[in-house]
């Protein structure tokens, strides 16, 4: 096995596969995460808005439908439907995949954000409203800054899960050079030349581990910074 690993590492073609996959995995994750965070944030705020606001009735139903569907079905199924049916446009495949991961992640993120907002004492909203601030002003200036501390660990968890979820992007077909050629796809491609899945698997696994480790480090850093102004 070690010989195979060395064989892979000494072949510039194989190494370029891994590097390309590494880059694409990170890119797909970043764009999906950005979309997911944006969607999750909007959905959470809509869901948490007071029930008596008639303008919020339809958005609330839409958001409930969204989280039910995207949390209730496997992401692989969503990927196939989005890539081969909804966005069956030539050349759009990688973007359709990123959109799918983003939308899927948004459904989970929205629940994390909602939980974080709900964990802030009800009295904070009342205090803000009692002074004459609007619901949105109170939300933005008072509730969200406090909620974010509770949200970050859950979001970090979700981002790590997202990174690994993107490993199925190759299932819709990937060739080197396309954004869909991620780490997992690189491993399969290497296997075709050097038929030892353990060797390529370990190498690619180490890459994933490296990214996750960096993410954990980053999340902890943010948590620490946010805690700074508590006293």
């Amino acid at each position, binding site marked *: 096995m070690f010989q195979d690993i060395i064989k892979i590492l000494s072949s510039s073609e194989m190494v370029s596969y891994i590097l390309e996959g590494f880059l694409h995995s990170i890119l797909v994750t970043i764009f999906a995460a950005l979309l997911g965070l944006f969607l999750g944030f909007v959905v959470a705020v809509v869901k948490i808005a007071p029930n008596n606001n008639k303008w919020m009735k339809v958005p609330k139903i839409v958001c409930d439908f969204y989280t039910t569907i995207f949390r209730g079905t496997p992401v692989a199924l969503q990927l196939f439907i989005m890539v081969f049916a909804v966005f069956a446009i030539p050349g759009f495949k990688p973007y359709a995949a990123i959109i799918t991961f983003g939308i899927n992640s948004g459904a989970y993120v929205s629940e994390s954000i909602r939980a974080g907002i709900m964990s802030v*004492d009800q*009295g*904070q909203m*009342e*205090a*803000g*409203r*009692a*002074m*004459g*601030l*609007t619901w949105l*002003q109170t939300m933005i*200036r*008072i509730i969200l*800054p*406090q909620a974010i501390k509770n949200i970050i660990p859950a979001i970090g968890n979700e981002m790590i899960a997202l990174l690994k979820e993107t490993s199925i992007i190759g299932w819709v077909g990937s060739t080197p050079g396309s954004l869909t050629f991620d780490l997992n796809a690189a491993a399969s491609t290497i296997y075709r030349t050097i038929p030892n899945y353990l060797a390529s698997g370990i190498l690619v696994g180490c890459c994933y581990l490296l990214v996750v480790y960096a993410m954990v480090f980053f999340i902890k850093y943010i948590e620490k910074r946010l805690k700074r*102004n*508590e*006293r």
Partner: protein
Amino acid sequence: MSVNEMQNPLLQVKNLHKSFGKLDVLKGVNSDIYKGDVVAVIGPSGCGKSTFLRCLNFLEMPSAGEILFNDQLIYKNERVYLKRQMKELLALKKEQKFDEAAQAQYNEINERYTSLRKDEKALEKELLKGINTHRQKIGMVFQQFNLFPHLTVLKNITLAPVKLKKMTEEQANEKAMELLKKIGLEDKANVYPATLSGGQKQRIAIVRALAMEPEVMLFDEPTSALDPEMVGEVLKVMTELAKEGMTMIVVTHEMGFAKEVANRVIFMNDGVIKEENNPKDFFANPKDERLKDFLSKVL
């Protein structure tokens, strides 16, 4: 009765009702609050004191009744009663007692209901639109302080005045420092609330409400969450505020405060005001049986 009886009341509450689902918490509260009044509201827990207070700044939307602020009608809902009457009449149908007289009565009520409905709905819309302006005129102090833990003391105080464009940032800072100086906490301006004692927190919560320059201050059991030795410092701030002429409605269990600082004391029980008097007579000659019982337990 108030010393300022000659002028119109600042706040008029008429037949105020509030129910949470099937639970009726307020069952017809009537009260006039005059400018400069310090009203202590006492009563057993669960009698609706806090709900009454929260209905005044619409943190709870009342179910029925009337509220006037500065002689301006801001809340009115009478149609709830009419609706109930109509329902009762319709219930007669089941018992086959729905005769012509009942029908006539029903039609009459229904007519009044329809004419009321439009006006009251319009007023409700107006209220929802103006609710934040209304709240700016009414300061509120909570039992649990509800300071914003992520902001410094100074920011806690200046956030609302600046955000609501009542003052510029400099003006708000100046005003906040002046108020903090008054309560002797100017050295705490730049610390976070977590480092303060309960008494300090509540004093700052009072200052935060004052920074909006409200016309009335509502206190919802301001000393109930405090250590006994910190109650005094908060009551002192409130007493000073009363001396300056601030109109205050204070839900409290501090009988000493009610006796010495308030000019009117209200006893609430079972969702209505059972007794209202000046503090001297209120404590010396209570008339209501429940009040006598209550006082014997707390004094």
